[in-house]
């Protein structure tokens, strides 16, 4: 089960901040999230949204382990 985290406006949009979701790949996770909530799916693919796997930014697709933390990070605003 990947642990999915949403930050900033993404969690407001989705109505949740953290969810356990079974998915073998990041691409499959995106498909699954989009199927559940097309508006969120579009936002996750939007400009400037980065993905971190276990706190490391990744680009493109990647396999997800049983306990991978997947964080969707909208553009960072600074403090």
């Amino acid at each position: 089960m990947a642990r999915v985290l949403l930050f900033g406006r993404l969690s407001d949009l989705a109505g949740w901040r953290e969810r356990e979701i079974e998915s073998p790949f990041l691409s499959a996770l995106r498909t699954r999230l989009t199927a559940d909530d097309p508006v969120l799916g579009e936002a996750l693919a939007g400009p400037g949204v980065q993905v971190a796997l276990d706190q490391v930014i990744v680009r493109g697709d990647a396999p997800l382990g049983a306990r991978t933390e997947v964080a969707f990070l909208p553009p960072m605003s600074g403090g």
Partner: protein
Amino acid sequence: MIRLTFEAFDPGALLTAFCQGRAEVGAVATFTGLARAEAGATQTLELEAYPGFTEAAIGKVADQARGRFGLADLEIVHRIGRIAPGEPIVFVATAAGHRREAFEACDFLMDYLKSKAPFWKKEHGPGGPRWIEPSDRDHADLQRWDKDTPP
């Protein structure tokens, strides 16, 4: 030391502690960012961080600052959660042998923290909550440091 805190903090107490026992340093610069009321437009600021990730990202830039400006020490404390107008949001202290390096390192760290650090910022005003993106000025400030950065 880099620390995120949900609790209000006193920048003066941090400065007092930071200056202790520095008989060989000479120069301590600080910056304190305070939440602005904006004449009632902002009632509360809310800052979200990604625990662990945010500290690590700030830590990398802090290491750059240590090397680039030859700092003896630095401290960064950043508030997260809900912040009332007038409360400190961020405190940066830098210690160096000469004031130029202390000032420049503090300035460099603040430019990073204000525009690129992994925070997400929401203002709760009379018109409801609103997510904030970094300002053009924040980006311009940060670019000042790029021109003499090795590629």
